[in-house]
């Protein structure tokens, strides 16, 4: 693995971003919109009850951005190479799949942090929510698990793109929203009906958001459940990387990289 090739791809994404209003827009637009909608709604609900909801909801929105952006950006920046028909020259170059994947991880992570910082500032200005309410160690652990899982999802979508081309691009935007209702981002696991809870408990994201709520309320964290989430995410990432390498190999067998759609 060569650092200069990873750097080359990061420059490629940087140039893609500064030339594309879409790529600039989607770092800020939806996250900021979420802060307004959920923030205002929580203010309203809070008036109806004694429970202080705002921290829990905003904490959920802020952490969700890590899995959302990181998974989506991997697929979208890969798709960008298909849209611009750059795949042919990229794969004729010495770039390795692992270097491509790492560069995509980095771009997803950087954009997640940029969106997070903007949202954190906005949350403070609008609702007085301080990000420093998070325990820094807990926060780092949550973000790490979310990144690992998001990268796994991103690589899996990338495999589908290599296998079926840009016609499956809708997955890049949609898959993460299928996971969200079962991830208990805004409500506890106990709030779900039994059938949904059975799915939710399987997902690493559920354990992260349960941990986040405990951390924000000063309760004890269930490290065992976080260990499960971490292990699950690592294994999922490894499997996704393996599926991606198979998909690229299959694309090469079928000659699809030489005529990308």
């Amino acid at each position, binding site marked *: 693995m060569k650092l200069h090739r990873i*750097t080359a791809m990061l420059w490629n994404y940087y140039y893609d971003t500064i030339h594309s209003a879409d790529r600039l827009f989607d770092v800020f637009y939806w996250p900021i919109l979420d802060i307004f909608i959920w923030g205002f709604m929580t203010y309203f609900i809070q008036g109806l009850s004694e429970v202080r909801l705002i921290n829990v909801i905003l904490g959920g929105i802020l952490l969700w951005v890590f899995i959302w952006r990181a998974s989506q950006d991997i697929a979208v920046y890969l798709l960008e190479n298909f849209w611009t*028909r750059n795949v042919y*020259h990229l*794969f004729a*170059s010495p770039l390795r799949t692992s270097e491509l994947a790492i560069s995509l991880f980095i771009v997803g992570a950087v954009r997640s942090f940029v969106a997070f910082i903007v949202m954190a500032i906005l949350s403070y200005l609008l609702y007085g929510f301080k990000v420093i309410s998070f325990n820094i160690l807990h926060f780092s652990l949550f973000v790490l698990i979310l990144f690992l899982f998001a990268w796994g999802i991103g690589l899996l979508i990338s495999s589908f793109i290599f296998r079926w081309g840009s016609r499956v691009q809708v997955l890049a935007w949609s898959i993460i929203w299928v996971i969200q209702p079962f991830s208990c981002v805004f409500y506890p696991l106990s709030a779900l009906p039994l059938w949904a809870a059975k799915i939710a408990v399987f997902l690493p994201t559920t354990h992260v958001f349960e941990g986040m709520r405990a951390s924000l309320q000063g309760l004890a964290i269930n490290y065992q459940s976080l260990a499960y989430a971490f292990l699950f995410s690592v294994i999922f990432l490894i499997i996704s990387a393996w599926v991606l390498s198979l998909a690229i190999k299959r694309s090469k*067998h079928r000659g699809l990289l030489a005529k990308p759609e």
Partner: protein
Amino acid sequence: MNVIEVKNLVKTFPSKNGKVKAIDNISLSIKKGEIFGLLGVNGAGKSTLTNILTGLTLPDSGTIKIFGKDFLIHEEEIKTRSNIATAYYDLNRSLTVRENLIVYAKLYGVQNYQKKIQELTEKFMLTSHLRTPIKFLSSGERTRTVLVKSLLNDPELLFLDECTVGLDPDMAEIVRDYLLQYNKETGCTIVFTSHYMQEVERLCQRIAFLYQGKIIKIGNAQSLLKELNLQRVSLHFSNNIEEAKKLLHRENIPFDENNGILVFWVKNREKILYPLLEKFVKYKIVFDDIHLNKPTLEEYFIKKSRENKR
């Protein structure tokens, strides 16, 4: 020393009627410093062969050695020492010429890449377009940008697939001159695919003629034409052309007709052409003019393609 050694290469693709053999048991070696041409009609297997040699497509079977190393094992090293230009695929269309060249220079690990980009863009007259996104360039300018990209890493092996398509004649000549000079100065091996036969004839020391995934002939332009041993006969008529056509039919000589000119090929002047001309005199079929020409590589290409179709 052989830079490329291909043995028993086979590649099939799925099709509606089963499988199509795009590469049918090809064996080939290309020497260091050679400019090697790949010729063939559409679908002959030229692009598939180039794609396999650049790692974009995997073969079903066979071995490929480049720089004496197994391609599948040493792919990364081989790709670092080689490059490709094709008129069919642009670089990233959203990025400017300069940005694309920076990305690819870094991908190939080029030291002092700013200077290299400056030199090559000057050579290919792209300096005024450095800040222009690829999507706003003309097709010729895009082709030149891809060519510059292919030369950034001073490749020891260069694949050029129709790399002068879209260039105006002046620019195409500059590119051909540059490639010849580059080949002479660096000893770079070039694998050249083109539909312009004159270009192939001028640049390539050896040519492989592909048809339906097989190499039909391999050799230099002169030897291919010598092997053909044919002369093209053009007979110009202002009248009597129908009688002339009937006579050629009777003699079983295939011909083409174009604006009062009948064109056919003869292998042996004494045995075929002279007796034929005597018959023209005998049947009082008068023609205005006669031209005898040696075939060009283009005519060889067309003839071989037709023979193989039959």
